């Protein structure tokens, strides 16, 4: 276990290093990107530009700039944004993380439950009309883009029907749980649904295919021959074994979402989470924030990978080290 943790930590460090270097190089090699010019305003004099460059350290060699930036992120934690000189980037991410976590956890709960219900229902109803109907619904869910679904939901809930059915709904945005649990919940209902639709569709289809495959396994026949009820065969044998696939997929998707992958949902619903921050920093070409967000995202993806591996060993005894 200890070697596993050490190996994973080293691996995380390597991944983060490579990603940040890449992002850093891409940023400075992209034509037309000059943070000094963006800060200096219209028609700046060359002296002003040079002054700003010196202030930001942009006139120093790239590797020094990189080193300074990493130091400011990990050690002094006082890296400031280019576009908004008052904001400290690290603190900004920590402030945004709860919104993202609330969004992703809630959505994940919905999508796990719904995907299992739909996947199991479709597998059980195979050979009847309900199976293809469910799978077409799932396919529509996979195909519907989040920004479109989100906007349509907003149009209905915040627009046409806001005066009657959805009167209780707060305006777009995120209220922290500690401020008001009720507002937190109400404000997140539709973002949760929007974010989970894609994953429900995808997971339901994967689960159905997996269940049908496992249903033909010899050990399912054995379970029936033992005299177990169909329900027990399904839950304790078929579904239990299909969780091996389900969990490994889930870990990766969940990690990517917590790491800022819910960017579209956050933007459409005005939730100021990490995804929203990413979106803003990309539109402003704000390198410090981009780098910090990328590190944050990479951390969660690698963490999710490690958790998937641990979870995998937990649900599949065959891969456990002996």
């Amino acid at each position, binding site marked *: 276990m200890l070697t596993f943790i050490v190996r994973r930590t080293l691996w995380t460090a390597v991944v983060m290093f490579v990603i940040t270097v890449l992002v850093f190089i891409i940023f400075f090699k992209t034509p037309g990107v000059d943070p000094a010019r963006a800060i200096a305003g219209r028609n700046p004099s060359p002296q002003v530009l040079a002054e700003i460059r010196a202030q930001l350290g942009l006139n120093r060699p790239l590797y020094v700039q990189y080193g300074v930036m990493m130091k400011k992120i990990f050690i002094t934690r006082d890296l400031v944004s280019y576009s908004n000189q008052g904001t400290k980037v690290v603190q900004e991410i920590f402030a945004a993380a709860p919104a993202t976590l609330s969004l992703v956890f809630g959505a994940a709960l919905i999508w796990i439950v719904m995907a299992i219900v739909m996947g199991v229902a479709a597998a059980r109803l195979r050979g009847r009309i309900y199976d293809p109907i469910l799978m077409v619904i799932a396919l529509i869910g996979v195909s519907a883009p989040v920004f479109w679904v989100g906007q349509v939901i907003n149009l209905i809930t915040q627009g046409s029907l806001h005066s009657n059915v959805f009167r209780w709904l707060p305006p777009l945005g995120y209220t922290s749980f500690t401020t008001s649990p009720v507002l937190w919940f109400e404000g997140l209902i539709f973002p949760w649904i929007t974010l989970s639709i894609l994953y429900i569709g995808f997971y339901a289809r994967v689960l159905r295919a997996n269940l049908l495959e496992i249903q033909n396994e010899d050990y399912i026949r*054995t379970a029936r021959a033992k*005299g177990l009820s169909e329900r027990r065969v399904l839950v304790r044998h078929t579904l239990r074994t299909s969780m091996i696939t389900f969990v490994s997929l889930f870990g990766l998707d969940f990690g990517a979402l917590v790491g800022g992958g819910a960017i579209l949902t956050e933007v459409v619903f005005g939730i100021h989470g990490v995804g929203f921050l990413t979106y803003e920093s990309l539109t402003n070409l704000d390198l410090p924030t981009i780098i910090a967000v990328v590190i944050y995202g990479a951390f969660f993806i690698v963490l999710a990978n490690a958790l998937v591996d641990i979870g995998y060993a937990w649900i599949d005894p065959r891969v456990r080290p002996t």
Partner: protein
Amino acid sequence: MASPLLEIRDLKVSFRTEDGIVRAVDGVSCSLYEGETLGIVGESGSGKSVTMMSVMRLITDPNAQFEGEVIYKGTNLMNLSQDQIRSIRGAGIGMIFQDPMTSLNPVYKVGWQIEEQIREHEHVSRQAARDRAVELLTAVGIPNARERVDAYPHQFSGGMRQRVMIAMAVSCNPDVLIADEPTTALDVTIQAQILALIKKLRQDFGTAVVLITHDMGVVADMADRIAVMYAGRIIEQGTQRDLFYDPQHPYTWGLLGSIARLDRPRPRRLAAIPGLPPSLMRLPVGCAFGERCAHRFERCSELPLLLDRSGTSHLDACHLSPQQKKDLRDRTIHPELVEERP
């Protein structure tokens, strides 16, 4: 004789497929008496597994259609509800399968899988079920059963897994044990051990055994009575002695003739039955074996029934007269012996 423990009466199983109806089992009748071993022999696709899977009502294919009766202790299993048949599966009739590598659930400990079955049928505590699992594992010859009960299937070899399957199948003291090619996936030495184990359990617990196999050697060793299946029908049925020393059906002769025997001169090559089994979708009119039979005559276009043709309990489905059979038999089973005669 007492009334049979398990009686199959005119069982027919067919599957609807895109190309037409496949008659996998076509009117099989046979009985199993207390404490005996019935061997069912036949090649792949002859319907032996489908027959016994139908007895257990384990065929879940929605395109399968069943006719006939399966009487177990006076109840027709074919009429039972799912819940009623469940109380017989595993408790009254235990079953072991061909491939021990895939027959156990890989994610549960073997002990847990045995306990699960015990607790499904009997109201006993976890601890009691666990103790029984350890006892059973010991009985089937798993060393260190107390520790191995907490091992996962992948930590066992194929032979050991089959032992676990057997322990599981007999865990609720069934009257009938159906063994569907229990040794096919195992190598020869392990095969002998598993067969010896089944024999021992039959002696110790008085369980009646249905042994499905394609191996004449296995039935010769194990079975009291033997039924030979071909193309979904039983074509010969009798005691082990009848089958091996007085076989009546040309197909049985073919099977016996294809065995390499150590107590006879070595043949130049093993005799084989020419041709292939017929498609179950388009069975020939009359005797299904007719097209491959060297002794075919006019009457063979009429379906031969499984009848007692020799005045004993030895049944066969061949139109030849007993005398003709006697004459033709030796030539078919041991052609090289005949040829070598001056």
